[in-house]
């Protein structure tokens, strides 16, 4: 890890708008060549953080370093960072070629170098035939590509992308995900990608920072934030989960944060604690269990986690079951459809519910 340089370092950055706190003090590093995603609901401060990195907003406190150099007081037009704006912000009176070449022109490149680079960029984003069109004569997807080409043309060290796909329809969005990811790997530019779409974040990112109300809730790889959510917010925001009120009954502080928890409905369950301070007896919190981590078996012997199928929903690849445990707790599960009808349950069936202790995450907040 030490050999990879840090591209962007957020050091104790906070941003207030008058009384309103848009970003509470946060610190983290983004590695060079990384596809880093800021994921969170609308209004959580993603755009504000991006604008601070680009230089459009000052920090209230804290600093941003770019390759270990302090960025404070450097105006946006002197930062080797480019932005793909949420609404693209293409220059309406300029052709596609002039839009893409604008930054190069400002950097004082020669006419020939600009032309070569613009040619290269329109090839990269496959807009060769549209080079003389104005932005208004392009579809949303094409405008998006122009914005991308324009921002990447000056070969920035870091590219900031503010929900670049949110204005596109689903099919195009899915296609662009793969293209963006490929482009990032190909160019080696560090991407800081903002989205409120968890699927987008999971499929594209090297690492994700999950944000909520101006705070970073968790930073990790897609599988880490999905499989090992650090908080109730992360567990609920990314994917679907069962959340059950529970408290710790025995903290076996030996290894791997293993704890026994007691559901408010009475069941005792071995689980994994998300954070060390959950390891106190009596600590209250939530148990999070992903629906696809739950195994259903036909009821054989009496078991403390037995229940009845209340509803089934066929989802194509999966079937979703809603189960009421004998204690009264409601759970939902997803089982992959194998094509073997024997494995399917129907409403009213009695079932046994089981899951690994690793899949039951005890979240104290």
């Amino acid at each position, binding site marked *: 890890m030490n050999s990879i340089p840090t591209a962007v370092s957020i050091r104790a950055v906070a941003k207030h708008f008058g009384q309103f706190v848009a970003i509470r003090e946060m610190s983290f590093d983004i590695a060079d060549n990384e596809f880093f995603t800021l994921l969170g609901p609308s209004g959580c401060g993603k755009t504000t953080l991006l604008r601070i990195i*680009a230089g459009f907003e000052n920090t209230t406190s804290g600093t941003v370093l770019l390759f270990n150099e302090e960025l404070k007081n450097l*105006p*946006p*037009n002197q930062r080797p960072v480019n*932005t793909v704006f949420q609404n693209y*912000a293409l*220059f309406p009176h300029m052709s596609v070629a002039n839009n893409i070449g604008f930054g190069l022109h400002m950097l004082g490149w020669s006419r020939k170098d600009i032309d070569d680079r613009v040619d290269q960029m329109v090839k990269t984003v496959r807009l060769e035939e549209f080079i003389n069109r104005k932005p208004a004569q392009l579809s949303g997807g094409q405008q998006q590509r122009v914005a991308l080409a324009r921002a990447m043309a000056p070969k920035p060290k870091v590219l900031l992308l503010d929900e670049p796909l949110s204005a596109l329809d689903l099919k195009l969005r899915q296609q662009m995900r793969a293209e963006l990811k490929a482009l990032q790997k190909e160019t080696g530019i560090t991407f800081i990608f903002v989205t409120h779409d968890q699927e987008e974040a999971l499929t594209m990112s090297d690492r994700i920072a999950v944000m909520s109300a101006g705070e970073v809730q968790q930073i990790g790889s897609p599988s880490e934030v999905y499989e090992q959510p650090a908080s109730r917010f992360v567990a609920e925001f990314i994917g679907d989960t069962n959340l059950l009120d529970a408290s710790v009954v025995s903290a076996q502080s030996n290894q791997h944060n293993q704890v026994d928890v007691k559901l408010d409905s009475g069941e005792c369950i071995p689980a994994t604690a998300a954070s060390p301070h959950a390891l106190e007896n009596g600590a209250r919190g939530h148990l999070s269990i992903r629906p696809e981590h739950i195994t259903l078996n036909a009821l054989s012997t009496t078991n403390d986690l037995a229940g009845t199928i209340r509803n089934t929903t066929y989802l194509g690849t999966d079937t979703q079951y809603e189960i009421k445990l004998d204690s009264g707790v409601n759970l939902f599960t997803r089982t992959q459809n194998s094509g073997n009808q024997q494995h399917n349950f129907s409403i009213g069936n009695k079932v046994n519910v089981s899951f690994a202790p690793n899949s039951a995450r005890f979240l104290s907040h």
Partner: protein
Amino acid sequence: MAAAGSGRTVSNTFAPVRNWLLLPTWLTVGIFMLLPIALMLVYSFLTKEFRGGVIWEFTLAAYDQFVFDRGLFGDEAPSIEWTYITIYFRSLVQASMATLLCLLIGFPTAFFIATRSPSTRSMWLFLVTIPYWVNLLIRTVSMKFLIRENGPLNQALLGSGLIDTPLQLINTNIAVQLGLFYSYLPFMVLPIYAAVERYNFSLSEAGADLYAGRWTILRRIVIPAVKPGIIAGCILVFVPSLGAFLAPDLLGGAKTFMIGSLIEEQFKGNAGNWPFGAASAMILLTLVLIALLFYARAQTKEQV
């Protein structure tokens, strides 16, 4: 330019009544705009009556008088009469200067207003238009009062020690331009304001993001985006400035005589010459139309 060619299907539904609904518009345009121009055109080819009015006899005398000294139809060789051409040229210069002045002051003003918070914008706009609740004549007279030899402007300048002798502004080109500027400034501010208000400021941020400085952003991004507003404002100031007569009459003198005053004189009292006034007006109208046509051509070319 912007032809209203869309909405065919909707208008077809109303086709039977549409012509009747448009009748008031056509009547207004016909009676108050086309008919006077037609009358003017006819009068410009009639013979003058000495106590004002016309004799119904066709002649080119009015146009002849405007352009030639000894006359195209006399015995001697004709020579160009420079008096009126000079007045027209001077008017073009005056109107251009006034337009430029309005643009230099109006553009930053419009920009300032459009970037205030939405709640205070209407107050600023109201402030800009307040003087227009007062009659143009009275406003022009007040301007004369302000800039005369011992008026408030000179007294303030003398008092502050910036000048030793009062500025002689009355009867100069500067006074006329000030008058025109004051008369027509809102016609510059309002269209530019409307354009700047629609301007998407993230375009400026995109410019800064792509390494452009403040002036480059203004020149290469902001001004092209609000250009329609600038051009509309320039036309709205230039056209009435060209034909203005109050400001040149009240603030200027013989040396600042402009088209508007020339035409005005031809119709005033018994001394006038109606056909010559009509011909002068037609020449002015033609000049303005040619200028607008050039502008329209440039616009359509740009859109392709």
